[in-house]
C-alpha cells in the first residue's frame, strides 16, 4: 500500500468517531433543541470532510477506480448519503433527519471498513465506464436512503401529531408536507440516476452477465416508478411513507443479499 492509501486508512477512525458522535448528539437533540443539535451538525460536517479526504486519498493511490468491491462501494455510498443529507441537515429545522440517517451511515461505514473498503485494493482497478456506472448507481441508492430517512421521520412525526403529544412543538422537525414532498423528489431524482446507471452498465453488458442482483435492480426501478404513480393518485402521507420504507428494504436487504449470492 502506498503512502496515500495508508493515510486514507488512517482517516477512517476520525470519520467513524465524527459520524458516531453525530448519531448520539442527534438523540440528545430530541430531549431539547440547541447545543446537542449543533454538535451533531458539526460532527456530520467534519466527518464528511474527513471522509472526502479519505476517498481522495484512495483515489490518489489508485490507478483506476478504487471502489469496485462491495465494501468500497459501501464507503462511497455512505459519503453520498451523508453529502445529500448535508444539503438539508445544516438547517435547524431539518436537523432531526440526521437521527434517521447518521446511525445508518456510521454502521455502514464500519461495515465497509471491516470489509476492507476503506483501504486500497489493487486487484479491483477498473475503467471509466464502470466508475460512472457505480457512481450513478450509488448516487441513486443514496437518494433512496435519504427518502427512506425522510419517510421514517414522517411516520414518527405523524404519530406524535395524531397522539396530540404535548411537546409536539418543542422539538424542531421538518414540516410533514415538506418531508412528504422532499421524499418524493429524492425518489424521482434517484429513478433518473438509476436509469442512467443501468444505461451505462448496459454498455459493458455481455451475454451471460445477467444475475439476481441485476434482476433486483430492475425490480427496484419498477417499484419506485409505481410508487411515484401511486403517489400522484393520492397515496401520499403515511401510506406513501410506508411504501418508501418497504422499497428501501429491497435496496438495503435484498439487493446486497443477491449481490453476494451472484
Amino acid at each position: 500500500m502506498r503512502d496515500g492509501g495508508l493515510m486514507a486508512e488512517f482517516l477512517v477512525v476520525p470519520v467513524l468517531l465524527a459520524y458516531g458522535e453525530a448519531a448520539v448528539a442527534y438523540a440528545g437533540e430530541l430531549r431539547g433543541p440547541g447545543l446537542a443539535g449543533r454538535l451533531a451538525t458539526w460532527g456530520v460536517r467534519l466527518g464528511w470532510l474527513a471522509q472526502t479526504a479519505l476517498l481522495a486519498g484512495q483515489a490518489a493511490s489508485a490507478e483506476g477506480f478504487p471502489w469496485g468491491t462491495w465494501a468500497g462501494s459501501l464507503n462511497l455510498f455512505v459519503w453520498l448519503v451523508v453529502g445529500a443529507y448535508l444539503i438539508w441537515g445544516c438547517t435547524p429545522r431539518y436537523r432531526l433527519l440526521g437521527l434517521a440517517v447518521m446511525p445508518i451511515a456510521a454502521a455502514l461505514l464500519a461495515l465497509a471498513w471491516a470489509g476492507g473498503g476503506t483501504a486500497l485494493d489493487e486487484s479491483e482497478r477498473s475503467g471509466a465506464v464502470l466508475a460512472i456506472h457505480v457512481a450513478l448507481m450509488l448516487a441513486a441508492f443514496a437518494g433512496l436512503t435519504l427518502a427512506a430517512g425522510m419517510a421514517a421521520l414522517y411516520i414518527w412525526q405523524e404519530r406524535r401529531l395524531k397522539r396530540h403529544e404535548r411537546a409536539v412543538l418543542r422539538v424542531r422537525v421538518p414540516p410533514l408536507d415538506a418531508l412528504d414532498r422532499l421524499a418524493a423528489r429524492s425518489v424521482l431524482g434517484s429513478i433518473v440516476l438509476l436509469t442512467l446507471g443501468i444505461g451505462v452498465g448496459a454498455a459493458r453488458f455481455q451475454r451471460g452477465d445477467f444475475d439476481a442482483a441485476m434482476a433486483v435492480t430492475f425490480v427496484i426501478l419498477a417499484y419506485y416508478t409505481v410508487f411515484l404513480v401511486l403517489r400522484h393518485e393520492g397515496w401520499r402521507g403515511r401510506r406513501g411513507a410506508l411504501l418508501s420504507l418497504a422499497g428501501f428494504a429491497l435496496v438495503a436487504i435484498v439487493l446486497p443479499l443477491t449481490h453476494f449470492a451472484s
Partner: protein
Amino acid sequence: MKLTLAGVSHHRAPIELRERVALDLEACRTLAERLAQQLDGEAVVLSTCNRTELYLVREEHADDEAVAALAQLAGERADDLAAALYRLRDEAAALHLFRVAAGLDSLVPGEGEILGQVRAAFEAGAAGPFLDRLFRQALHTGKRVRMETAIGESPASVPSAAAALAQQVFGDLTGHRVLLLGAGKISESAARNLRSRGAEIAVVANRTLAHGEDLARKLGAQALALDGVATELERADVVVSATSASEVVLSRESVAAALRARKGRPLLLLDLAVPRDLDPAINDLDGCFLYDVDDLEAVVTETLSGRRGEAARAEQLVAGEADRFREWQASLDIVPTIASLRALAEEIRDRELLKAGGRLSERERKHIESVTSQIVAKLLHLPTIRLKEAAAAADGVVYADVVKHLFGLEEEERRR
C-alpha cells in the same frame, strides 16, 4: 460619551400610567429630535404598549433631562411616575436594551414583536455614532437569540399554538387555504394569526350568513352558510371551528367523504369551541389531524415551560453581547490616547526624514520611508492592543494616564 436610560414598563407601571406616557412612532421621532437638540447629543425613544423608554447620550449622564421628559408626558400622573420609574446607565442600560430586544423583558418571554418595535424606534430616533452602535448591536442580539435558541418558536396562546401547528404540518403557510366555521372573536383571532403567517382565509361559514359576511369582508374571504362547506372541505388545508352550536358541526363521515377528492393532502382541523364542534373520530382518518382546546392548551403549557428553559440560554447570550458593548464603550476612552501616541510617532518620523531628505536620492528616500513606517507600526502595535485590552478592564484610565505621562502627550497636545 455617557449613556442614560430612563423609562417605565409593565413590571412596575400600571396600564393607567403606561398609557399616559405611550407615544406613537411620529411622537417618538419628534421627542427624540427635541431631546437630542436640547442635550447636544443623541436620543432614541422606544414606546410600546408595555414600555416607554428614553435612551440619551451626551458627554455627561442626562438623568434629570430624561426624568423631566417622562414627567412631562405623564402630566397630572407625574407623581405616580417616581415609584414606577427606572434609571440605568452605561453597561446596565446597554444590557437592559439587549434584553428588551431579545424579548427577555417582555410579558411573554421571547415574543417576537418587540424586535420590530426596537428597529422602528431606532430608525425614528436621533441616533449618532454611539446609539447607532448600541441599537445595531441590540438588533443583532435579538436576532441571535431567535436564531440560536428556541425561545421564540414556542407559542404562548391557543391561537398562536394553532398557527404553529399548521406550520408544523404544512411549513410555509403561504397559499394554504383556511376554512373558518363560526364568525366570533375566537375564530377571528385564530384567523388573524394564520393570516399573519401567510395563510389565505378562503371561506367563513356561519349559521347566520350576515355575521359571516361581516368577518369575511374583514378577512377578504368568501361567506357561506354552515351547510354549504362540503365542497370547501375538499380544497381547504386548515379548518378552524369556533361556533356556538351545541351539536357536532362536522361529522367523521362528511370529512371522510371529502378526503377522497383531496388525494392524500393532509388536513388540519382546529376545534376551538366548547362544546366541541368537530367529531373527535375525525382524528382517526388518514391524513387528518384534529386538535381541540384542551390539546392546544396542553401544547401551550408545555411550550411555555420550554421557553423558561430557553430563556436561561438567551440570558447568557445577551450577557456576552453586553460585555462586547462594554469593551467597545471602554475603548472609546482610550482611543484619543492611542491617536495622540500614533500622531507623536508619525511626527517624529516625518521630522527625522525631513532632516535626512536632502542627502538621499528619490529611491533611497522611498525605501527609508517604507522601512521607518513599518518600524513605527510594529513598535506601536503591541502597546495599542494592550491599551485596548486595559480599557476594557477597570484600570484602563490608569494605563491611559501612564502612557500620556511617559510620552508627554499632554504637553505635545498643548504645544500643537
